[in-house]
């Protein structure tokens, strides 16, 4: 016993010394790692405000800002510029408005971000050209029917209209836009509908989608998940471009996006080619 004691003590000292050493090393390591990400953060502060997009690139942008210290309204992906996290799901929203089927939702619990704020041409629509009786230029008359005619002025403003990819040639401007009130959309009775409530327009032809949307199955809602909770609803045009819901040969209603970066490769693996091979050819 006497013989072992000094050994044990020596061992213990050695162990704790070794431990202390490794801890010091880790500390230095951590300091290095901590310093590295601090640099870009500093550089960012002097840069332009960060803007990220939600579902439609170029048509659903949000500007990042701090709501409270260290708490942004939205976090943006450094790779794709997509919105990755919501600090405030209700930012910039207004009430969705009345709609059949939403009676159970308490007042003010269904909100949307107004689309009209995103539309650059809209403010001119009823003012600059269309004054309520038709185009203000020659000939000053309302269109006689809803049938397709080329409109060079509009095509210049919105190139997507040149080859309207919605309905495969069976629908045209005035199926969606109000004949005389050009800053309004139109519902099934021909009554004007706000650009902030496109569901009342789309729903007249896509009733099945409208029903699913109303029940939260199609489209998306953020905020509180309870069926009577306060939610921001994404309206149809926040995901679909009404002037192009086919995207050419893709024939899909939702435009392609750049994906976020892939997961880390397993240790020692240089690329992901192993995912493409099958051990036994079929």
């Amino acid at each position: 016993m006497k013989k072992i004691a000094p050994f044990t003590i020596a061992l213990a000292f050695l162990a704790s010394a070794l431990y202390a050493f490794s801890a010091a090393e880790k500390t230095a390591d951590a300091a290095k790692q901590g310093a590295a990400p601090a640099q870009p953060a500093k550089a960012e502060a002097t840069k332009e405000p960060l803007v990220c997009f939600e579902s439609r690139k170029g048509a659903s942008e949000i500007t990042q800002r701090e709501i409270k210290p260290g708490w942004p309204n939205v976090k943006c992906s450094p790779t794709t510029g997509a919105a990755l996290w919501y600090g405030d799901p209700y930012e910039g929203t207004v009430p969705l408005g009345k709609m059949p089927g939403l009676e159970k939702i308490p007042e003010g619990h269904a909100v949307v971000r107004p689309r009209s704020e995103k539309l650059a041409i809209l403010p001119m629509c009823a003012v600059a050209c269309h004054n309520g009786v038709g185009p203000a230029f020659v000939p000053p008359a309302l269109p006689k029917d809803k049938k397709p005619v080329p409109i060079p002025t509009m095509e210049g403003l919105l190139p997507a209209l040149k080859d309207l990819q919605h309905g495969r040639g069976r629908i045209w401007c005035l199926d969606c836009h109000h004949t005389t009130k050009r800053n309004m959309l139109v519902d099934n009775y021909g009554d004007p509908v706000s650009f902030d409530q496109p569901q009342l327009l789309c729903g007249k032809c896509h009733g099945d989608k409208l029903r699913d949307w109303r029940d939260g199955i199609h489209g998306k809602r953020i905020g509180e998940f309870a069926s009577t909770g306060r939610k921001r609803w994404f309206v149809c045009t926040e995901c679909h471009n009404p002037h192009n819901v086919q995207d050419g040969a893709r024939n899909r209603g939702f435009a392609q996006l750049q994906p976020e970066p892939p997961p880390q490769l397993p240790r020692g693996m240089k690329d992901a080619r192993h995912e493409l091979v099958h051990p036994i050819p079929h």
Partner: protein
Amino acid sequence: MTHEETPSADPAREQEAERAVPPASADPAASAPRASRRDFLKAGGMLSLSSLMGTAALMVQSDNARAAIEWAEHFQKNYRLMTPQEKAEARARLERRYSQEYGRKVNVDTTDAQPGVLMGYALNVRKCIGCRRCVHACVAENNQSRGSRPGEKIEWIQVLRMERGEFAKEKMNQGYPEGLGIQVGGNAYTPAGEVLEGQYRYEPAAVPEKDATYMPIACMQCEKPPCVKVCPVRTTYREPDGVVVIDYNWCIGCRMCMGACPYWARRFNVNNPVLPKEEINPVTHYLGNRPRMRGVVEKCHWCLQRTRHGRYPACVEVCPVGARKFGNLLDPESEVSLILARKNVFRLKAELNTFPKFFYFYD
């Protein structure tokens, strides 16, 4: 009690002690030696004298308050067995430690399951475009490790890319016999022979690709979870609102649960997690996204820190196509209940009788 509120007898000395702690530590365990329970157990296996010496070294190395916190953490009960008083103490301890380590007020919530709520999830596989936003939103919300060295980048959601099948006339007569030298069947079907398990690391310029479908996979919050059955320390268990959780402090890192999970949902912290100060989400739950330590397993918990307070999980909120749906299964009006009632729904690997509360559907 928070770090800021801590009364101090001698402010100058406290500042001194704080400076000894590495600044801007990206790595909680590095600034606080011996944070892991596993290390502690290992040390216990050594000669008792030497482990005592180790403790002494621990006490002198950092400020006493922090060492005491860790000491207390090592000896706290399994979360499920704690009294409300003990829970409050554990919470205060963690809040103090995290707030100190991350240089800002970190909140550790201990809200229990809410009565009348059974959480459920549904994912529209037809809509998913494989953009991986959910994966990265999850990381931003749940304080996963985000280092660059192997094993330091942890993601809970995996998006599986599968090729669309195609039968081609030109291939009708190909490959008789191939591979094993026996006839294995027809050969007109193209991609099945090329991709066995699907791809996780696809990197095209734009998604969705023409020939692919995507299937995100994370924890299914099974009603009969195999991971819970195998856990030797019973640190992973099913909460009354249906979410399978982990008390990280009791995890010994044996990884039995990882082997038992048929959905590849669990991740292991091989290294000290790398979580830069400025990226931490300070709103955390004890059983959810509070910063983890080395040597423990973690996984999706449906953002308990949000969902226990009625908010949608982070992945649901960022999905650009609205493929992800979340709600209360006990409420017939919730979107998940309506999907179960109206759409075509399936569970992944239903034959295993794990009874996931995560459903896939299509319209």
